């Protein structure tokens, strides 16, 4: 069975969090903001594309005010469905609204020892281990730069992170922290080597790029330059706003949904104008803040509701929805991480998410904890079953069977089995996965990856 079949939920159960009128109001407010206030772009390439297509650009402030008609024309060319490619086609991921996927999370900086609980700076080997665990889990569909490979040179770190994931897993990969032109070109070469060529990569993109916008209403230079390069290469781009309720967006959820949506729409408009039909994804990891401590509240109810608005907006635009879920604020694996991630994943998928990003980190996306990923894998299985809903038919009603049948339960067993908690069982599973070798990586691809990374390091040294 192909992996995607395990992720099929069909016409899933959805919460009607927003009415059609609510969605339209958020859309219209978004267009109003983009046209009257504009969005600050720091990329000259982006400003040139926008101006050539009817936006009014102020060269001093670098603000582009984009008329609603330009946005609407641009959004009319977005593809509604496409497939994310994987090293092994068995793990290709169709994005069609009927499948749901979770990837590992991104950009953590620490790794937690499962036995001692000690926390240290993250390294490339953590990514290798994480990729092996992702490969082994049925409900986790993609690897990512879950933590930073801080033992690798900064100039080529992104390439080492990709290398670690792809050598240890056959699944799709999520790239987050690309900042330089040589990184983008080198990654595309690595992905082309995996896919088997330039055109093959367009059909089966081996990675998705998450491009963080800066709230409120800023689009960074490297993010936009990168979006343009990747869109041309056929790589899906997920614009990923992260407004914080009451800090970098209004404290009211609907208002921050407008800011979030404006950042997505302005990015999507740019790439559609430059490369009509480019694969875009409505992304984002907006959060709240605990006002008493000022701490980041990645999974407070308001943060979950704000993210849920994105699923509804993505449906409205007919684009895949991809947002943060699973970045528990808990400091250790256990009860809090379980209830927060369960709610986050349920809310995400019941409000239209196709993919969530992601699992595996504690402390608000800072600390890698592989056993927590194993627990999330279990949770997502339960959520999937809930989302498939209830079939009511003659067969499932089983009235004849009920008429025919009459009537029809252990603590001791658990004590005798060693009284293990779910987290302890998950730790054992991680140890078992890490003790087995990774799926073999073709030697010629390995040599090509090494050569591309060496060439990028050389190029970086001359800059």
């Amino acid at each position, binding site marked *: 069975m192909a992996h995607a079949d395990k992720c099929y939920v069909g016409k899933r159960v959805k919460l009607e969090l927003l009415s059609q009128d609510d969605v339209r109001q*958020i859309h219209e407010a978004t267009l109003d903001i983009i046209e009257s206030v504009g969005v600050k772009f720091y990329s000259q390439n982006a400003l040139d594309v926008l101006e050539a297509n009817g936006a009014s650009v102020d060269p001093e402030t670098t603000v582009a005010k984009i008329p609603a008609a330009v946005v609407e024309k641009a959004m009319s060319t977005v593809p509604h469905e496409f497939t994310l490619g994987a090293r092994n086609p068995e793990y290709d991921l169709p994005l069609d609204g009927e499948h749901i996927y979770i990837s590992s999370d991104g950009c953590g900086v620490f790794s937690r020892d499962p036995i001692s609980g000690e926390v240290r700076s993250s390294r490339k080997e953590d990514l290798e281990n994480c990729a092996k665990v992702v490969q082994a889990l049925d409900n986790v569909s993609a690897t990512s730069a879950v933590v930073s490979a801080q033992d690798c040179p900064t100039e080529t770190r992104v390439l080492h992170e990709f290398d670690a994931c792809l050598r240890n897993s056959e699944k799709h990969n999520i790239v987050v922290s690309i900042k330089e032109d040589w990184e983008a070109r080198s990654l595309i070469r690595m992905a082309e080597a995996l896919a088997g060529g330039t055109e093959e990569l367009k059909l089966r993109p081996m990675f998705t790029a998450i491009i963080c916008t800066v709230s409120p209403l800023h689009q960074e230079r490297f993010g936009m330059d990168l979006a343009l390069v990747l869109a041309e290469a056929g790589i899906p781009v997920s614009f990923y706003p992260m407004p914080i309720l009451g800090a970098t967006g209004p404290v009211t959820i609907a208002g921050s949904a407008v800011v979030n949506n404006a950042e997505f729409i302005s990015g999507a408009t740019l790439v559609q104008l430059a490369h009509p039909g480019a694969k875009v994804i409505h992304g984002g990891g907006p959060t709240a803040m605990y006002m008493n401590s000022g701490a980041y509240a990645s999974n407070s109810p308001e943060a979950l509701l704000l993210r849920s608005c994105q699923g509804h907006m993505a449906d409205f635009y007919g684009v895949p929805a991809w947002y943060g879920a699973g970045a528990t604020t808990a400091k250790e694996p*256990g009860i809090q991480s379980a209830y927060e991630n369960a709610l986050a994943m349920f809310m995400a998928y019941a409000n239209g998410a196709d993919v969530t990003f992601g699992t595996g980190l504690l402390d608000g996306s800072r600390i890698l904890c592989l056993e927590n990923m194993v627990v999330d894998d279990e949770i997502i299985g339960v959520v999937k079953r809930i989302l498939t809903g209830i079939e009511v038919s003659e067969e499932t009603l089983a009235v004849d069977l009920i008429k025919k049948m009459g009537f029809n339960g252990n603590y001791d067993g658990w004590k005798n089995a060693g009284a293990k908690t779910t987290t302890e069982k998950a730790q054992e599973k991680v140890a078992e996965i890490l003790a087995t070798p990774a799926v073999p990586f073709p030697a010629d691809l390995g040599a090509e990856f090494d050569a591309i990374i060496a060439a990028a390091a050389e190029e970086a040294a001359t800059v």
Partner: protein
Amino acid sequence: MAQFYGVPAGLGWGGTKSKQPEAQSAYENTLGMVLELAAGADFLFGAGLLDSAQQMSLEELVIADEVFGMVTRLLRGVAVERETLAVDLIKKLSFKGDYLFEPHTRAHVRALWQARLSETGTYDGWKSAGSPHLEDKARAVADGILASPAPEFPAELDREFNDIIAAAESGRF
């Protein structure tokens, strides 16, 4: 079905298989709670039980209280109206992330959900507090409650209850 018949719905909930408060009881009870309440339940029956509703756990009860607060906030949903869309405010602040200092923020900030049990501070803060497990924090909350007196029970009701129980025990009913 309860809505169809126009009667309140009180649903069984919380019969986790877990034998102690842990990750499994947390995700099972949480998913059960949000699903059943979203589907129209008026009340849920079963907070504080473990091991297929055989063991009572005060920690589990305290955890259910925390999760219930989150779920009820989720189910209240998102108000989309002029005040909450805050288009004029977004226009005024444009590219500045200074929402914290706005009257609009002060007016609505108290409506945000506040954690009572969940860990919400920094990692270092949690470490210096002795790295408490959530179940230990829940136990401390329960112990605090047990150390304070229950709400007063009227003396005449107390007598009447005692009389009824005594009567039942002596077989006079």
